[in-house]
């Protein structure tokens, strides 16, 4: 079997990551872990239960999705931007037989892989603390993490394509990611929101990721899994398609 054309791009990123794997993973993990333990125990001590389960159990799926989203977004914004714009890595690759689609597919696959890794790390914590209701069901969180990572990688690459500099990414975080984290059900159920806000939140990709992940931690099969999966997939594909067109206009004009 011959490897796909984008694979050398994935491998390039993997080899760089390997050199700094330990600090990079710790950095990726520290933030969601602190949230999980701090909020889970701190806030969890104040709350009797949320949706009928201890708060820490409720929060676990939210943190997994949050961590995956963050990891995928950081990789496709800051890291991809430095490869595209600062280090001219993409330009160097484009002088070889590889095309822009190969480069972006490699980046997409890489960001999804890193997101998967972040998700897997949170899953280990979930298992370690025994937060899952059903171990076998919780294994389905792995494909959910991958799909969520893919979705936000596609969107992130589209933002990267139009960014003039690093500062621009702050807008994406404050205008898209942070509201999504607050409204998408990471910290509290969307049912706590006023109806109109909940209706809006239902369109956010992160909401769909959490709709998939939370039941899997709490021990039952999600409602409408196919629908949520398709929405995540479509967001990712739409983002990637836009990224390809916009990056082509940026670099190959």
């Amino acid at each position, binding site marked *: 079997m011959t490897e796909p054309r984008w694979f*050398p*791009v994935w*491998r*390039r990123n993997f*080899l*760089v990551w390997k*050199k700094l794997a330990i600090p990079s993973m710790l950095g990726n993990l520290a933030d969601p872990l602190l949230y999980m333990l701090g909020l889970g125990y701190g806030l969890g001590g104040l709350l009797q239960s949320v949706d009928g389960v201890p708060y820490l159990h409720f929060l676990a799926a939210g943190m997994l999705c949050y961590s995956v989203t963050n990891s995928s977004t950081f990789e496709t914004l800051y890291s991809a931007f430095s490869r595209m714009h600062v*280090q*001219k*890595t993409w*330009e*160097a*690759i*484009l*002088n*070889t*037989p*590889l*095309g822009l689609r190969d480069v972006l597919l490699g980046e997409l696959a890489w960001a999804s892989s890193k997101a998967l890794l972040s998700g897997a790390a949170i899953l280990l914590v979930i298992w370690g603390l025994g937060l899952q209701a059903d171990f076998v069901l919780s294994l389905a969180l792995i494909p959910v993490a991958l799909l969520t990572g893919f979705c936000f990688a596609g969107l992130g690459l589209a933002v990267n394509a139009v960014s003039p500099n690093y500062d621009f990414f702050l807008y994406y975080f404050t205008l898209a990611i942070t509201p999504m984290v607050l409204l998408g059900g990471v910290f509290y159920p969307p049912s706590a929101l006023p109806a109109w806000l909940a209706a809006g939140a239902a369109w956010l990709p992160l909401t769909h990721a959490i709709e998939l992940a939370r039941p899997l931690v709490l021990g039952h099969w999600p409602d409408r899994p196919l629908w949520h999966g398709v929405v995540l997939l479509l967001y990712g594909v739409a983002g990637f398609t836009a990224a390809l067109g916009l990056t082509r206009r940026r670099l*190959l*004009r």
Partner: protein
Amino acid sequence: MPLSPLSIHDLSKRYGGIPVVDGLNLELAPGCCHGLLGPNGAGKTTTLRLALGLIAADTGEIRLLGHALPDQGRAARQRVGVVPQSDSLDPDFTVRENLFTYGRYFGLRPAELAGRIPRLLAFAGLEGKADAPIASLSGGMKRRLTLARALVNDPELIFLDEPTTGLDPQARHLIWQGLRRLLHQGKTLLLTTHFMDEAERLCDVISVMDQGRIIVQGSPRELIRAHIEPHVVEVFGEGLTAWRDRAARFCQRCERVGETLFCYTHAPQAVLVDLDGRHETGLRYLHRPANLEDVFLKLTGRDLRD
């Protein structure tokens, strides 16, 4: 006649309505070094990007190693090497890792690369630096590594976009040595440069480009013979303005640039005698044969571009 590695016919490319490449024709001969000279913004880099199939032309036809561009760019680039104008080495990798990773983009197997990399390191004079990080290399070493990287796929044709810009004279000589070795191996080179001495030394054929067009083409000697008087006397120092009126008597053509008067002539004897007679006035001169820079400046003018 053997197939031309690169043939470009009537190529045009506009940016924002402004023609950057404008009806360009170019035919490279196999095994030759072809120089593309031109002032800043003449369209050299754009021509190279078009010739690699990276960007689409507005009009024109390009065949690169027998492949029609841009449609068959991927197949063509498999056999081309590129030294880009701006540095794009991977700062996260060592010297060896840079070569290895780049080779993988061409689909080369690790075993194949393991055989090639020592030869590339030797070619670049970087044997002792295989495991050094990029940040520890001098400018000349980085450029040599970029050249070695361009050879990782054993290309037939190599594009070099200003390979020696920013290097000191020793480093430039090392790059020239490398390029001559490649020519001995039968590779074809397409080189852009702002250094006329570099073009004169290395290139078999030179195309001078201005505003997207090739204005003249020929070997360095042909160009000098065809476009410029063989002798140049550069005159400078006190009393230049007063002497300038006399100069016209002795020389075919005079041109003042800043503090220096360039006198072009077929017979320098008269002007030299006249100048020697004014030794004590503070007027000084330099007599030299005409070179490519004289041609370049005559054809593209002396005013600043950009």
